[in-house]
């Protein structure tokens, strides 16, 4: 199974947990797309294992390609980053997603329905989630389809910007009513 991590390699994104899971699961292919201050540390930890690849920073077009190739996308942020571009791209591309349950994530993305939620910095939970997805192709497909439907229903830019315009218009009008510029 091909598992993708795409983020800056910084503490807040916790690439180390992903890499440690890769060490424990040598039969799966782990790809790390991103650059950052933890890159060296990750590479040292991997110590040449062939199932874990580091691609460095990857442009948007190649991320799209990697996303299509992957079976599973993993986001291991320590703080809530529910609408990150890579997570949403994975959902849009019908990928099975493993995501850390931080902040309000579980309010919007249901565990076992849209994504598999795991605790932050918990390598054993990540390993178990990957094994589950590896054993159950049906679950992978269901998660992907539900995730894509969520993006289509809730994250369309036209709808979001309409809401932003509404807030902006109200604020400008309120301010005009209270004082003259």
């Amino acid at each position, binding site marked *: 199974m091909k598992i993708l991590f795409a983020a800056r390699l910084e503490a807040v994104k916790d690439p180390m947990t992903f890499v440690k899971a890769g060490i424990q699961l040598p039969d799966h292919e782990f790809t790390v797309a991103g650059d950052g201050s933890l890159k060296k540390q990750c590479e040292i930890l991997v110590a040449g294992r062939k199932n874990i690849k580091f691609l460095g*920073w990857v*442009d*948007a077009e190649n*991320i*799209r390609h990697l*996303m299509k190739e992957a079976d599973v996308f993993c986001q291991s942020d320590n*703080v*809530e*980053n*529910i*609408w*990150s*571009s890579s997570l*949403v*791209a994975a959902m*849009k*591309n019908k990928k099975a997603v493993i995501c850390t349950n*931080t*902040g*309000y994530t579980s*309010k*919007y993305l249901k565990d076992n329905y849209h994504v598999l939620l795991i605790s932050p910095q918990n390598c054993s939970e990540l390993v178990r989630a990957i094994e589950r997805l590896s054993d159950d192709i049906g679950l992978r497909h269901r998660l992907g389809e539900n995730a894509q439907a969520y*993006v289509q229903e*809730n*994250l*369309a*830019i*036209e709808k*979001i*910007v*309409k*809401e*932003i*315009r509404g*807030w*902006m*218009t109200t*604020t*400008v009008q309120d*301010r005009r009513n209270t004082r003259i*510029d």
Partner: protein
Amino acid sequence: MRIAFVVARVGEERNVIQRLSLILADELRKQGESVDIFPFNRRSVFKFFSYRKLRNYDCVLIANIGLQCAYFSICKRLRLIKKCFIAISFGSDIRATKNKLINLFNQMSKPVIDLLIVVNPDLLDTARARGYVNVVYVPCWSECLS
């Protein structure tokens, strides 16, 4: 509505915030608003009369509440600009509670921001805890980047 949109790091391909900001500007235009981008960089800080251009707009929209927001906030506090200020926080700025510079920028801009839009639900709590009063949440439109 005529919107002056202040965006930092325009042209940096790796910067997600500037890409999201430019996408937002395009969509606002598609929905009938008039949006002009005001690229902000460190050199802008020394252009003392750059605030004058903002007078022709109905509101000033600012991407992220960092240096760019603090800079124009000073102009507003000095009453050189009297327009409505709307800021969008993508999180990195408002979460940097240990960064003294960001804290200072936040302190400077907070009183003059009429509306703060956040794109992650937990940022509502964070922003209110930091003293922002008029805060709203909308989901991020990062879907457009994929």
